[in-house]
């Protein structure tokens, strides 16, 4: 998770920042699902045998969150494409220097 945050801050390339965001999200998902684990439990699909089942509630939350996460990264990619169309680069430093040039 910290690795994802690190990539977001240090990379200059905007596509890599979107990837960093996705990694950050996925790490949080893994943490949530690990809370739902019960030792010697099985997947929460009811059978005739009496078993210990894992907690289905975090699974539901994460199912929703994964799909929303994909929507977020799609929006981020669309933004990156639009930036590339306007500036013809997706490196942060180059965009900054171009902006400074036009201000003068």
């Amino acid at each position, binding site marked *: 998770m910290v690795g994802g945050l690190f990539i977001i*801050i240090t990379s200059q390339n905007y*596509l890599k920042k979107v990837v960093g965001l996705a990694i950050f999200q996925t790490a949080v998902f893994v943490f949530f699902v690990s809370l739902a684990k019960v030792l010697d439990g099985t997947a929460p699909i009811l059978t005739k045998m009496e078993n210990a089942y894992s907690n*289905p509630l975090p699974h539901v939350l994460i199912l929703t969150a994964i799909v929303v996460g994909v*929507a977020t990264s799609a929006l981020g990619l669309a933004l990156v494409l639009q930036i590339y169309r306007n500036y013809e680069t997706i490196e942060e430093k180059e965009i900054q220097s171009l902006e400074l040039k036009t201000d003068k």
Partner: protein
Amino acid sequence: MNFLLINFFLISLLLVTTFFIFKTTSLISVVALTGAFTLLCSAIYVNLDAVDVAFTEAAVGSGISTILMVMAAAKLPEGKKNKLINLFPSIILAVSISLILIIIIANLPLLGDPNAPIHLHVVPEYLKESKDFFHIPNVVTNILASYRGFDTLGETIVIFTAGLGVIALLTSNTLNRKTNFKKNNKKNER
């Protein structure tokens, strides 16, 4: 014990993948590594008994989002090897956040403890009753579609809005930024 070993192995693979995503500059390999990352995550979900989540992650996270990223990376130029920015403050931030997380995780119940508070509240009722109510053995489906149906409705609205946003961004020519910017650039060159 076996379960813990597999989990440890998969998570160390995840860390290695993250490191290589951080290191590579070529965009298409970053995208491929992200696909591998999400696939590893779905393996972890299977190991943690979350089969439905693993399905979704493999289909949506590893499939659709990788396709979207490949489509984007095909239109973008190759990444350049630039110097990293904000290196020092981000190292401090990363170390402090991981310290805080480790302190918090030490206070959490143990992994797989059946008496943790999360397993005691509404979930036993869901597990007991849902089969009689809905006649579907999969509890995750029951909660997703019935008990928490409004959440799923909200999710659909979010995705619809995101789709509208993507279409608006990709088709808009009203930004006008491009023409102004190019004119200014030409002026500067002269």
